[in-house]
């Protein structure tokens, strides 16, 4: 048994328990400090993670748990996301009437689930880590207990989440029934000989369905807009970034490590999923007036772009996914932080509330513009290079299999559509008509720092992509293409 391999998760859970206990003794008005303490603790853990190496890979817990470059890459990703989300949560927490400490704790437990999922090398760990994450999110989404929208979001997420867990378990059972193994390494050998066993294929499709729910890919995307809109904004940010990335980490490991030979037969299926997800997300985002709902649909569209990387079924496709996730994280978290700051006292997050933001808070307007432009995929920002890598991966395959051209065409149509609504936000900021009495905007130092970090990284990743590219390439090597 090699417990040291999972030291990062243990540290995060320890931090969670410590925050939970401290919550018992801290007076009510000081609970906000728990958030800062958690963020500081996570920062320490993040620094600690750089003393670890995923090369060569370490196995633990009866080979259920693997620590390789890929897992470590994602763990760092989740840690950074959680630190930023923690700051977003602190900014949002005045809206919670009770249970601030619990909220911070739950974020930490969800993080632990995500970090475990990055290391899943066995269906049991895959399922347990998924559930740890999902069950925590049931609570996080309905945390505004007195708001009907938040409760609605929680219920929706609960019902559809339970359904997808059912899919997942049933699929796992079928796979186990046909191959009599749940271990990814063994499955790799066995599945190669059973590429046309219908029960195994049905089982795997169900598992993909269960994971598709997490990443909000078609046809499992229905929950996303409602849940994104109703949940507390900090939860939405974590859901958009963390939950999606965890889904992709699991999906990549499942498709490319556990059952690569079966995946090869599914290029058309994956392409169709990617294409429809892109079109669905972008088309539905067009008429949206609520900013969070818009970002919900945009997150579906982005799941579609990321699926392009899966559909490319190559090392460059997976590298592109890893790069894209980073760019997506910083842009989305910056956007949600601004939503919270600007719309603190308004009930609904309507886009018109951003009108004249440019005059009220030029800095925030600039960051929001950066974030929208990056989401639209325009240089010199992070989102552009991510999209470029995804396009490159898809077109690389097009010379062998011309249906990839169609996927690229769909993606282009998607990007052009998306420009309309992302630029609509920019339009509102700079020359929209103001309808409401503007609120004064106060920015805490932590939020200010987070916004600075996000905008600098958005530009940095667009102008200097070399470092992250190298890290992503190294991480993808663990996937054995």
């Amino acid at each position: 048994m090699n417990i040291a391999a999972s030291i990062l998760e243990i540290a995060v859970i320890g931090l969670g328990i410590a925050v939970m206990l401290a919550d018992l003794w801290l007076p009510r008005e000081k609970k906000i400090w728990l958030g800062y303490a958690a963020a500081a603790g996570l920062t320490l853990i993040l620094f600690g993670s750089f003393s670890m190496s995923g090369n060569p890979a370490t196995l633990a817990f009866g080979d259920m748990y693997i620590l390789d470059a890929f897992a470590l890459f994602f763990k760092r990703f989740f840690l950074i996301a959680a630190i930023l989300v923690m700051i977003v949560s602190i900014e949002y927490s005045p809206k919670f009437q009770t249970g601030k400490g619990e909220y911070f704790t739950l974020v930490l437990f969800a993080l632990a689930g995500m970090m475990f999922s990055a290391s899943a090398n066995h269906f049991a760990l895959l399922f347990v880590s998924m559930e740890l994450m999902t069950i925590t999110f049931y609570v996080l989404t309905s945390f505004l207990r007195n708001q009907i929208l938040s409760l609605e979001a929680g219920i929706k997420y609960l019902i559809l989440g339970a359904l997808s867990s059912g899919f997942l378990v049933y699929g796992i059972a079928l796979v186990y029934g046909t191959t009599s193994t749940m271990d990814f390494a063994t499955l790799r050998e066995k599945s190669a000989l059973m590429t046309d066993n219908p029960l195994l294929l049905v089982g795997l499709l169900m598992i993909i369905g269960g994971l598709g729910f997490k990443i909000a890919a078609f046809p499992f995307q229905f929950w996303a807009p409602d849940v994104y809109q109703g949940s507390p904004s900090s939860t939405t940010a974590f859901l958009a970034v963390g939950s999606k990335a965890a889904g992709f980490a699991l999906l990549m490991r499942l498709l490319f490590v556990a059952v690569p030979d079966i995946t090869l037969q599914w290029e058309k299926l994956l392409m169709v999923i990617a294409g429809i997800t892109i079109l669905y997300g972008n088309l539905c985002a067009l008429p949206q007036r609520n900013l969070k709902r818009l970002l919900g649909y945009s997150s579906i569209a982005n799941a579609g772009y990321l699926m392009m990387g899966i559909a490319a079924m190559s090392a460059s496709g997976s590298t592109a996914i890893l790069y894209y996730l980073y760019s997506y994280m910083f842009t989305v978290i910056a956007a949600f932080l601004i939503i919270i700051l600007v719309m603190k006292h308004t009930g609904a997050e309507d886009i018109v509330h951003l009108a004249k933001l440019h005059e009220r808070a030029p800095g925030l307007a600039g960051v929001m513009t950066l974030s929208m432009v990056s989401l639209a995929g325009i240089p010199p920002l992070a989102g552009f290079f991510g999209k470029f890598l995804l396009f490159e991966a898809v077109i690389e395959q097009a010379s062998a299999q011309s249906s990839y051209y169609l996927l690229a065409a769909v993606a282009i149509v998607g990007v052009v559509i998306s420009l309309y609504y992302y630029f609509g936000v920019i339009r509102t900021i700079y020359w929209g008509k103001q309808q409401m009495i503007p609120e004064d905007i106060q920015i805490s130092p932590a939020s200010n720092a987070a916004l600075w970090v996000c905008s600098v990284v958005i530009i940095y990743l667009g102008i200097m992509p070399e470092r992250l590219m190298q890290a992503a390439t190294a991480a993808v090597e663990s996937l054995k293409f």
Partner: protein
Amino acid sequence: MSILTFILFLPLFGAGLVAMLPKSAKGLIRAVALASTALPLLCAILAFLSFNGAEAGPGGYKFYQKVAWVTALDINYQVGADGINIGLILMGSIVSFAAVCVSRSIQDRTKEFHFLMLIMIAGIMGTFMSIDIFFFYFFHELALVPTFIMIGVWGRGKNKDYATYKMTLYLTLGALVALVGLVLLYVQSGAKTFDLIALQEQLRNNPISADAQTTIFGFLLFGFGILVSLWPFHTWAPVGYGAAPTATAMLHAGVLKKFGIYGLIRIALPLVPQGAQAWLEVLAWLCMGNILYCGWVAMRQKNLNKLIGNSSVAHMGFVFLGIASMNLIGISGAVLVMIAHGFLAALSFGLSGYLYDQKKTLDMDQYGGALRQMPFMGSLLVMAMMAGCGLPGFANFAGEITVLFGAWKSLPWFVTGTAWGALIIGAVYALRAVRKMLHGPVANDTLPLQDAANYWIKLPYVLLVASLLLFGIFPSLLTDKIRTSVAEVVKSIEAGTQDQQTNLAEESVKTGLDIQLAGQD
């Protein structure tokens, strides 16, 4: 460090400075913006003058510089100039300087306007000096967001939102289609590099199959075509320029729009010549659409900006005609028209902006006898209109006549004939505009037009007219440089297409041999 890098980074540096200045320091902001375009202009003139003597780097590019950027994909920051783009760089810096000069009328949010304009200028400069196809695309897109915001915030007219979106969506669509073509080149060449010189080297030795070339050229043609308003994808241009603030229209119509043509000449023709041949006929027909249809539309316009916008689309037809001829004279002419039209478009939009600032309308019926009220600016407008219909003495004439010669050699006579006939259409709308606005009785209204008050106001317009005249009277200043570089392009085209012919010849010899052998049996 190459002089080109200065030309590229000075505006960016200026943009950074402007961003840090306080909002109220309008004079200082103007000074910074002027300085960060005047210095690149000096650098560009210096580069242009010393071009012949400069040492040629890899691939024959002068003022060459290369910095590795992403090694995994072999993307490098790489700039250089040859005969094709040195003229464009010079034209771009003159137009940029002029655009900053005429922006004095921007009083609302001066700081933001100048910041965005300088970013756009940097994007423009980067586009025309990059010899890495990734950066080529990168810099073009860099200018997109500033264009969007500039038209949206400082634009004019009731439907400026529509115009803003239309232009942005069209430009993005075109750029993305072209990007697919560029990435296909990267993938299919097998060279795994975005370095234009290395790509050229690779493709010279192992050309891509004819089918793949046809696919790639198709993507590049329509992608770049949308960006240069190739008929029938041109509708964004008149609407967009009609709504754009003066400086944006000058920069975009004058310089940035040439990105597409430049891409076709620099990348598409030499790298996938067989593909070009396959699409030649389509291109020849589409450019007829530009020349005839858009000229015709321009005749019906009542708004000066719409007229200039449509006529600029029509002029692009000549450039496409030059490209379609695929010979030395035609392509050289196309490059010359590109440069000349850059000056012309900037001058026309600059002048229309001058008129708009005074009268708040560009409806030609509202004007009359303007030449009497503003003899200086009025005569400049006459000159711009004359240059537009191809009067000898202006650079446009030199370019268009060369294109027609080139087209005569390799395209069917009726194509060239129609293009020649279309020059008359140009004369009709140009002269009608002159008659309506500048001659006749002075329009009765409360706002009489003011002539340019001092040399500072005249400077940008004079600079542009002087450039048009200089290169019109001494076109050899440009053509000598252009011809040597275009000769290289034509050589690649010939080498590429000869392979095909020799292959065909070999095949026919072989089949002939087979038949002979069969006969012997």
